[in-house]
């Protein structure tokens, strides 16, 4: 007869019920996501305990019935009056229970698991995440002390009961007590986790959300396990007399509740693989028995290690000793320091000498594909560009990337610009008469990084609106860098932030890459006014601005070309004037020289001319005629008293033909 521990089952139900109620109060008071998730697990635990108790009761009645039947059989000497199975109502009840109610309970568990996952994932966690976006100081957990007390109390009670009942069920091989006992032990661990979460939430409340997400995932895994168990149960072969698997028992819960079971499984696998009893060796036994102690020692060593603090070269640490009578902070320089272990003392680190950075406007995209790409106005880039342009899902914050500037033109009210301005600053380590430092400046603020970002946005917004877009985009960037840096420095000094502004970059100022039509189109998606589209221009602003710049470049190029042409004209003018004057002077000189030479020639030839005027004249004449007629075409008419008609072609070639060229005789100069 199967061993039944009905009182144990009843106790499990009572403890589960009490834990559910108490956890509900804790979850309600603390508003903790983790506590809510644990209360869902406890609801499952209660259901498992209830089903287990019913199963025990039916099994117990079946056992009593079997005993009675055996007694009757023994008393009547084997009379066959009760041979038929139909006359065993308790057995039939248990069979009907296993056939119908256990699957129904499994389906109910699946429903609870899926419902829990849906509620946690799509309602509670989504709501908390949405709240985180709007809250500067997130409040996720309240009444931590109440929660801590409740979690610690439940952890102790459930651990003691779960540990005892689980071991008892294993020793007595009570398969009906095992599921609820394992579940109770599992929830005890969850309450330890809840206590840790609540303790950490004093410092960081978001941990509650993270653990809540993990538990929701675990619940989803349990749902999958439950579903698979049900599917496998459908195809499981039924063998008469062989006990079926309990659908409400989770192997995963059992494994988490009693991780030492892993050793048994691992031992069997190792024995099979190596061919000898690895599980009986000294090393394996030592690990099995002392693993908890080893892990505990490691945890203690880890905890003790929190009393050693290493401050880096560019760091300063502020030590807060929570046990000291006076908790004025002690400042630690670079090096190794010792302190009380956590949570009795803690060190807050600062990096006063490092360069800190943030962006005003669009944050530069650090995606390597984007970084290595050419930065073009018409190909906008930047982190979250689309969301910054279009706002959130409801269109709130649309056009946030546009900073208004002056237009520089009387008829146009304003222009807009898309900046991405990196700002680098350094926290002043120690204060001096001109500027505050880390202790008396930076730490006066609860969130100094946010303050400096707000101030930088203010300075940039004011500066841009005071300038024309043309000035900012073309000639005034260096001035803008200097002015904004100076103004931001003055403003941070006035707020006594204790920072030194190192750099303000104005390299990435862009005209909008969008066209008016595109922006109108985005609006049409929400409201719709297609008639207005006709009045909107289709050119992107960046393209038009680029066109204006190109016109400027063309203007300059045209001027340069014209100036070059003017210089050429100037050169031509000088050369032309010089040539004319030189020619005139040269001609005049030649004319005078020729005149002089003729005068001289006349004088020299005068003597021979006087002596033999006729002969000398003839000589001069023949020489002149000979020279003159060398290259002329000559027709000599040497016939008298005869009528001759001849056609003479008087055309002259523009240039001399090849035949006209005189070829020197062979032998050359010989």
């Amino acid at each position, binding site marked *: 007869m199967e061993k039944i521990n009905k009182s144990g089952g009843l106790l499990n139900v009572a403890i589960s019920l009490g834990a559910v109620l108490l956890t509900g109060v804790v979850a309600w008071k603390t508003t903790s996501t983790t506590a809510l998730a644990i209360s869902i697990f406890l609801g499952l635990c209660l259901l498992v305990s209830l089903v287990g108790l019913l199963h025990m009761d039916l099994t117990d009645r079946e056992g009593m019935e079997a005993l009675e039947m055996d007694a009757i059989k023994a008393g009547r000497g084997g009379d066959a009056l009760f041979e038929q199975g139909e006359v065993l109502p308790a057995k039939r009840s248990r069979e009907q229970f296993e056939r119908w109610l256990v699957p129904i309970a499994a389906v109910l568990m699946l429903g609870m698991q899926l419902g829990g996952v849906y509620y946690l994932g799509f309602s509670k966690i989504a709501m908390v995440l949405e709240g985180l976006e709007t*809250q*500067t100081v997130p409040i996720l957990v309240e009444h931590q*002390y109440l929660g*801590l*007390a409740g979690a*610690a109390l439940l952890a102790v009670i459930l651990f003691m009961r779960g540990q005892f009942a689980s071991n008892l069920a294993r020793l007595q091989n009570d398969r009906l007590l095992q599921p609820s006992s394992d579940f109770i032990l599992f929830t005890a661990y969850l309450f330890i986790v809840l206590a840790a979460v609540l303790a950490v939430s004093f410092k960081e409340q978001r941990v509650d959300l993270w653990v809540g997400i993990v538990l929701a995932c675990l619940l989803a895994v349990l749902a999958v396990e439950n579903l698979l168990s049900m599917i496998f149960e459908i195809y499981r072969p039924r063998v008469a007399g062989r006990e079926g698997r309990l659908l409400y028992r989770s192997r995963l819960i059992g494994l988490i509740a009693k991780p030492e079971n892993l050793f048994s499984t691992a031992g069997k696998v190792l024995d099979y693989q190596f061919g000898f009893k690895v599980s009986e060796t000294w090393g394996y036994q030592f690990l099995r028995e002392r693993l908890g102690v080893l892990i*505990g*020692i490691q945890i203690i060593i880890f905890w003790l290690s929190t009393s050693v603090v290493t401050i880096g070269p560019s760091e300063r640490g502020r030590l*807060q000793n*929570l046990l000291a*009578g*006076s908790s004025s902070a002690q400042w630690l320089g670079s090096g190794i320091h010792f302190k009380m272990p956590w949570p*009795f003392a803690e060190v807050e680190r600062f990096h006063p000498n490092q360069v800190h950075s943030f962006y005003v406007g669009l944050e530069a995209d650090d995606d390597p594909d984007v970084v290595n790409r050419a930065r073009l106005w018409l190909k906008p880039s930047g982190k979250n560009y689309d969301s910054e342009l279009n706002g959130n899902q409801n269109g709130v914050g*649309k*056009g946030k990337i546009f*900073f*208004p500037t002056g237009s520089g033109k009387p008829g*146009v*009210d*304003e222009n807009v610009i898309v900046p991405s301005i990196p700002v680098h600053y350094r926290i002043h380590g120690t204060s001096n008469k001109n500027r505050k430092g880390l202790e008396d400046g930076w730490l006066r*603020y*609860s969130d100094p990084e946010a303050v400096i970002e*707000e101030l930088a946005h*203010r300075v940039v917004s004011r500066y841009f*609106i*005071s300038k024309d877009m043309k000035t900012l985009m073309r000639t005034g960037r260096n001035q803008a860098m200097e002015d904004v840096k100076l103004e931001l420095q003055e403003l941070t000094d006035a*707020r006594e932030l204790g920072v030194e502004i190192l750099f303000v970059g104005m390299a990435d100022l862009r005209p909008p890459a*969008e*066209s008016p039509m595109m922006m109108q189109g985005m609006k049409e998606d929400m409201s719709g006014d297609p008639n207005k589209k006709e009045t*909107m*221009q289709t050119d992107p602003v960046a393209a038009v601005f680029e*066109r204006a710049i190109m*016109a400027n470049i063309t*203007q300059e190029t*045209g001027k340069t070309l014209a100036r070059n042409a*003017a210089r050429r004209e*100037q050169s031509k*003018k*000088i050369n*032309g*004037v010089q040539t004319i004057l030189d020619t*005139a002077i040269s001609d005049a000189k030649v*004319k*005078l020289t020729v005149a*002089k030479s*003729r005068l001289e*020639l*006349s004088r020299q*030839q005068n003597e021979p001319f006087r002596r033999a005027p006729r002969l000398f004249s003839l000589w*001069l004449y023949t020489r*002149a005629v000979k*020279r003159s007629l060398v*290259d*002329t*075409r000559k027709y000599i008419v*040497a016939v*008298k008293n005869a009528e001759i008609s001849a056609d*003479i072609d*008087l055309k*002259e070639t523009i240039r001399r033909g090849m035949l006209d060229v005189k070829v020197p005789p062979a032998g050359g100069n010989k």
Partner: protein
Amino acid sequence: MKKIVNIIIFALLLLIFGSYMFTFQVRQDQVVFVETFGKRGDAIQEPGLQLRWPWPIQEVYTFDRRIHLLTTQYGQISTGDSSLVVQPYLGWRIQNNPKTFIEKAKGDSAAARRSSVEAILRQALDGAVTSVFGDKENLIVTAKTLHDGEKEQEGEQSNGHTFENLESAILSNVKPKAEEMGVELMFVGIRRVGITEHSVQVTLNSMVTQWNDEAATNMKNAQDEAMRIRTSAENARNSALKEAKAQADIIAAKASADEAKIFSELEEKDADLAAFLIELNAMEAVLKKETTLFLDENFPFLKPLRGDFLFKETTLPDNSESKAAPQR
């Protein structure tokens, strides 16, 4: 060994939870209130470790005395007939006497109480911004008036608003409400000024028109300027050449005069020979190229062609009888 480890872990846990439940710490930048059964005690501002009873006997509220930043949403506000998107911020901290703050702050925890105060400050800030930006009847606050106002500081006289004036107005508006809540207002600023969704389209449209016009104007100016430079250069060249030619004419005239002077040096007796030489030179120059001559047999040099000298005494040719006629 196992028991010792368990005991140590248990003792540590007890120590941690005990310290959390029975003590609290006041840091130098904190102010703490302790409520005993709902009755509030005095504010504790002296840093140090303090003892307490655990919940529900005592509840501890710890507040940060440092300067906190509060930024409202980037939201649209009405400015007369127009609208603008503004995002202001303010810096606040708990007053030196924190009694008013703890009385006004509502909530079950310190964080909730701080949030309640921040919510009121946020509403006051939004209200002040709306009031300051929206109630300017004489001059509505727009991006244009802000531009004009900020330019005014650089010496250009025109009507407008400045960030500083608007921030001062907002600060004076929020300050009474903040003091009422036990909060000291440290500063107020305008983080961003932007244009509304509708204005973005209109602005982009006017920008496209503006920069298209500028491009066309620049192109026209460029062409005119280039034309002016070229024309000016050509005119200068032409006038210079004309001047040079005039100068050349003067030089040539002077040379002619000098030449005439040289020829005047010839004596009368040499004039015949000189005239003859001039004629010969002229003839040579005329007949130099592309000349066709029709000569008859009486041309002086051709007489020997007839062979008369074979029959009688040779005589010099008579130039006057030559019928050579140069033809070009």
